């Protein structure tokens, strides 16, 4: 997301920065009542849930605001042995792709599910930038419910931004590549001829959230960075920031920074939808994985799908228009009314604000540049421009809004957040960040009616902000109170991985809908044991299925004999508890595997291939009661061909 160029620029600036700017730094930025503004007394709840991308951790973190307390790390694209994610048999299919099992990804952005351009608290969508994927996290369980891979894509960065009613979540490729159906064995320096961009419009089922790739737009080969839906006035449109419109394939730091202006690509998605409905799309044969977690069987399935419908935008002159935007824009953010689109050119020294009305007029008047861009009309800059914010700072990246007509933009190079008025384009306030802010976030700052009150800057560099922890420090987030005219820094807090974008919503939208237990009666796992009476051990060839239950504080059975070398043992652990916050854990000595963490009423499976003869302890890993330390058992492993019979027991029961 942040180019090397900026990093180089940063080094230059940082040298100056640390000497000249530091003295007026943190101490003067924090005033006396900051602590009371972020203090959430023991036992009290935060006002907002803040869903923060975990960057290269591949996970999604959840913080409370204003306290900055870490509430949860939700595993999404990366394995998490603590929660058994990607280790249990049930969750392995979630990380399947057309490349096979991919245990990691790079999660950059988050998008709350929306109704009428306001969050509805049902789901949060997140992107995987590396092996292009899109995931949906269910906010009733705070678990990843679905992951869909994106064909024709080189890296899903411009994602997962959604329309006003989450009709579609978009997924634009960062790295243009030859389409999956084309021969990819081409010289890299044939980028201009052979490399294409693709933007997926992924539909979301209103009721159950299920995602499907409705269609893809095939575009010229460029890098897609971020995107925003139109709303209100600009309903039915989508805006994407692009860079590398130079179509360079090497040393992009230099070669993708030549043009004075790249583009914001405006897409009339309603029109595209009409063409698709009219059968104008081309069906292409591709391969991508679609993974879903079923809450009744507590098991994920992975399906490889084979077809996608593609519209080549060059063949349909009224879907896509390019708007020139200086220089390598990152953010292209739409204000609450939907009228203004703010481009944040990360190498630019000004902020252009485009007007949707003017864009429409320019299209009607054909106020286009003489030359099309790869077959796409280019609207004249002045014809789309509402105005420019002059001298806002260096390296603008991303803008969010409050409900009072103000915008807040992050500046990476000059390391500050700047508040300005959208109407008169005048700067109201600027505050330093520590250090080098990437994205920023205002609760509801992308919606039609922002909740405001706070702003969080997600910084890329930490340096001296915390007690040092060797060469790597956790990235810092900084909370500002924006309830007054001037912004006030009130809190630093560390984050996981590298936070990029984040969103926050009022706690009330989410906290009362929580699943506290899974009803055991509704458990449809094929290996469930609904009570100790149903526990057993079954041998099928060299596969040994252990139907085992957990309850405070014992496993049933807890003595198992007759397992032999060469066996694959599957522990299907059913947690019989029906009480909130009483998971049981399950670990096996020597297993080349993670643990299980089994929620009340759930069944989860650990595969274990014994590597030697002997006695293997099993035990509960999650402290469950005063007798948790007694929650253990033994498995006896005998040599291959041994005649030890398969037996299992608990206490005096068989």
């Amino acid at each position: 997301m942040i180019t090397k160029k900026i990093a180089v620029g940063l080094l230059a600036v940082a040298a100056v920065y640390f000497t000249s700017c530091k003295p007026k730094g943190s101490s003067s930025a924090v005033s006396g009542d900051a602590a009371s503004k972020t203090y959430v007394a023991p036992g009290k709840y935060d006002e907002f849930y803040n869903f923060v991308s975990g960057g290269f951790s591949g996970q999604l973190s959840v913080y409370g605001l204003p306290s900055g307390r870490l509430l949860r790390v939700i595993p999404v694209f990366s394995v998490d042995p603590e929660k058994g994610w990607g280790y249990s048999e049930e969750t392995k299919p979630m990380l399947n792709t057309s490349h096979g099992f991919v245990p990691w990804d790079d999660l950059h952005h988050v998008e709350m599910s929306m109704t009428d351009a306001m969050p509805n608290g049902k789901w949060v969508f997140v992107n995987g930038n590396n092996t292009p994927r899109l995931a949906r996290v269910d906010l009733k369980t705070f678990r990843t419910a679905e992951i869909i891979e994106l064909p024709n894509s080189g890296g899903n960065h411009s994602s997962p931004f959604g329309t006003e009613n989450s009709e579609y979540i978009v997924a634009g490729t960062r790295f243009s590549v030859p389409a999956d159906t084309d021969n990819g064995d081409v010289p890299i320096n044939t980028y201009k001829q052979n490399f294409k961009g693709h933007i997926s419009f992924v539909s979301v089922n209103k009721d159950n959230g299920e995602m499907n790739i409705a269609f893809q737009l095939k575009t010229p080969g460029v890098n897609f960075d971020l995107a925003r839906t139109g709303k209100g006035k600009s309903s039915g449109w989508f805006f994407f920031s692009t860079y590398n419109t130079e179509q360079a394939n090497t040393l992009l730091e230099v070669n993708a920074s030549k043009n004075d202006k790249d583009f914001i690509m405006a897409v009339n998605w309603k029109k595209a939808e009409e063409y698709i409905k009219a059968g104008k799309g081309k069906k292409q044969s591709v391969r991508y994985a679609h993974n879903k977690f079923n809450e009744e069987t507590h098991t994920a399935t992975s399906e490889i799908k084979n077809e996608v419908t593609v519209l080549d935008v060059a063949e349909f002159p009224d879907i896509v228009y390019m708007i020139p935007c200086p220089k390598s824009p990152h953010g292209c953010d739409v204000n609450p009314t939907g009228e203004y689109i703010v481009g944040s050119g990360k190498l630019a020294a000004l902020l252009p604000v485009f007007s949707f009305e003017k864009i429409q007029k320019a299209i009607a008047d054909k106020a286009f540049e003489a030359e099309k861009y790869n077959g796409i009309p280019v609207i004249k800059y002045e014809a789309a421009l509402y105005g420019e914010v002059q001298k806002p700072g260096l390296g603008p990246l991303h803008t969010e809004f409050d409900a009072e007509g103000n915008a807040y933009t992050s500046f990476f190079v000059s390391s500050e957040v700047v508040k300005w008025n959208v109407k008169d384009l005048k700067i109201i306030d600027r505050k330093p960040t520590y250090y080098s802010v990437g994205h920023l976030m205002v609760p509801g700052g992308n919606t039609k009616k922002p909740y405001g009150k706070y702003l969080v800057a997600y910084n890329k560099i930490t340096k001296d902000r915390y007690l040092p922890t060797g060469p790597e420090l956790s990235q810092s987030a900084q909370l500002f109170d924006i309830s007054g005219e001037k912004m006030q820094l009130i809190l630093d807090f560390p984050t996981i991985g590298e936070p990029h974008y984040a969103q926050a919503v009022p706690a009330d939208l989410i906290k009362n809908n929580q699943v506290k237990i899974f009803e055991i009666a509704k458990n449809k796992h094929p290996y469930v044991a609904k009570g100790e009476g149903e526990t057993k051990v079954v041998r099928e060839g060299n596969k040994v299925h252990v139907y085992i239950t957990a309850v405070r504080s014992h496993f049933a059975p807890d003595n198992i004999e007759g397992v032999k070398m060469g066996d694959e043992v599957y522990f299907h652990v059913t947690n019989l508890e029906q009480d909130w916050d009483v998971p049981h854990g399950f670990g096996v000595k020597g297993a080349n595997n993670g643990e299980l963490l089994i929620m009340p009423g759930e069944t989860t499976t650990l595969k274990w291939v014994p590597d030697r003869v002997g006695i293997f302890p099993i035990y509960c890993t999650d402290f469950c009661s005063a007798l948790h330390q007694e929650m253990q058992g033994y498995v006896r492993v005998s040599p291959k061909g041994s005649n030890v019979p398969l037996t299992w027991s608990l206490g005096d029961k068989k």
Partner: protein
Amino acid sequence: MRKKSLMMLLLVMPLFYVACSGGKTENNASTEPTEGPTTTTETADASSYDPKRGEGKYDEKNVDVTKFDAALAGQGKKVAETKCLSCHKMTDEKLVGPGWKGVTQRRLPHWIMNFITNPDPMIDKDPEVQAQLELCLVRMPNQNLAENEAREILEYMRQNDGAK
């Protein structure tokens, strides 16, 4: 072995009492999710606790045990097998919790239904349950029984105690 666990018990008990009294607000928090944890007056006031009735939605008026219903008891057996019998035996032998034999003679029917549907406040307040906890050291979990399930289990317990 026995000696060791007895020692453990003695060691754990003082801690446990602290945890128990502190746990009161915690338990209330889990049933009152709308605001931050609060202490509800109903559960905090131990003096209003009626050890004969227990605490919950049941009393002699809404639990009718004049007739025995074998079908109901059969249902209760099924529910108990999933949700109860990991820890309770049908005899008077203690497993994790006390055996069920004779429970319907020791307790009123609505006390039983209150306890199995609303264990946390009763564990905190009922002197006899507190004494039981000192023996078992595991708080009986709330197994989220539906009303009909609680009634079915009661009928199964009655059958176990000879009701016909």
